[in-house]
């Protein structure tokens, strides 16, 4: 939440600054299988966000002491490039924010990956935010889900992520950077669409119960579209490989 001073007019004539309706996603594009060395990968553009996700594995767990002979382990890195923001040069390497996001993302991935299929194994997930414009954790996780499927990792579902927020009295979907800086609430969610299981939930700002319910409804509705884009990315990749 930014300072309320200098708050720009985020909503004008029922539209948002970028012309979107309250429940409208930014344009989303995903391409699967973009990196040669990785076992699976995806490149995503979501509004002005540009994200590269890659998966290595399953391979032998490293370091050795982390090995679990009964099931595979997941490692997860979310990181923002120092040049990704429109303002200052960021610091490279993990910071407290990225450490927390890596942790909650890892926990969500552990839910959908069939870890029992990979004893003593390790699956590494990398989410590199190359350009950021708000909602980068959602963009990273949505891309990494496609990269996991592209790597052929056994999963019970392909999850998606998106955030809802509040601007004044309006609940809005897929909050961008300028909205996030001045919004009254932000709530990123990760959903496994088969049963609408909630795998990641964070929130800050202020929401009453009715607003929370409305935000969840918006996320689940948008999720259908996001999931379609994810599936199409994989279909396109395999069709292309088979020369269709």
């Amino acid at each position, binding site marked *: *939440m*930014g300072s309320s001073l200098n708050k720009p007019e985020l909503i004008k004539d029922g539209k948002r600054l970028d012309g979107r309706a309250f429940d409208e996603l930014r344009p989303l594009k995903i391409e699967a299988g973009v990196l040669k060395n990785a076992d699976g990968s995806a490149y995503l553009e979501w509004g002005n966000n540009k994200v590269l996700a890659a998966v290595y594995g399953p391979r032998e767990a490293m370091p050795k002491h982390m090995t679990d002979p009964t099931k595979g382990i997941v490692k997860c890195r979310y990181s923002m490039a120092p040049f990704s923001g429109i303002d200052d040069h960021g610091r490279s390497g993990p910071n407290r924010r990225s450490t927390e996001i890596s942790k*909650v993302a890892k926990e969500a991935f552990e839910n959908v990956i069939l870890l029992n299929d990979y004893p003593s194994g390790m699956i590494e997930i990398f989410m590199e935010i190359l350009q950021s414009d708000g909602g980068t954790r959602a963009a990273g996780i949505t891309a990494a889900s496609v990269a996991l499927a592209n790597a052929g990792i056994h999963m019970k579902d392909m999850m998606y992520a998106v955030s809802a927020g509040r601007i004044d009295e309006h609940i809005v979907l897929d909050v961008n950077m300028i909205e996030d800086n001045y919004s009254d609430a932000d709530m990123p969610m990760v959903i496994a669409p088969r049963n609408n*299981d909630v*795998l990641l*939930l*964070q929130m800050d*700002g202020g929401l*009453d119960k009715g607003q929370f319910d409305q935000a969840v409804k918006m996320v689940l509705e948008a999720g259908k579209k996001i999931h379609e884009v994810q599936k199409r990315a994989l279909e396109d990749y395999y069709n292309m490989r088979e020369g269709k």
Partner: protein
Amino acid sequence: MEIIETVKGGYVRNMLKEGKRIGGRGMMDFREIKVKAGVIEHAEGSAQADVGDTRVLAGVKLMPEDPMPDTPDQGNIITNAELLQLAYEEYEPGPPNPESVEFARVVDRGIRAASCIDLASLVLEDKKVWSVFIDLYVLNYGGNLLDAGYLAAMAALMNAKVPKYENGVADHRQRDKSLKISNIVTSTTFGKIDGSILLDMDINEERIADTRLTVVMDGNVLRAMQKGLKGSLTIQEIGKMIDTSMEKHAQLKSILENAVKEAK
């Protein structure tokens, strides 16, 4: 050790199947909560919160510093957590791990989102503001650090006095007025084990938990949430947790207010 944990975990699971918890606690009951404010006289504010066997000490210090470039009209909040080695046999030395970073950041998030500290009141002069350092020291781990952390941090802030500031220097020996607190948040952390939902998990419950969700409230407004662990939650389960969190807020708030009153 692992065998003992497995046995204890099995015991917890069996009891939950019958809708029971160790110690006869109800599913939506907290363990005994004790909050004591003003325990460290050298700190500007302090409090120790016990939730069952979990003990968290929070210390608040104020330092005159530069404001953040994007908020020149506000003071700063810096929250840190230490999972001290003396608190639990499995805590290890070294740089902050993801658990301690998450702990500190989630406590910071609710306090910030609910505007608990009146940040505008922390401006000292042009380009000088108070930085409020909240340090969370885990002294004993017994499950549910987050709720104990919120209680300790909130009580320490409510207990804090502002040092005298003159000619660019803070005099920590002369603290005349109280830190201006404009809102009180409380947190409730729920767990899910084999489909059972329970509030305030103890160490044996937390070790086998599938999921946890922390819900931070002030009155009727949600201020922060954080899901942890790899399990899933349904939308309905989350809705019920929010309702319970609203019910618990008044009780937790009065514990805080009493603790601060007693310290005066």
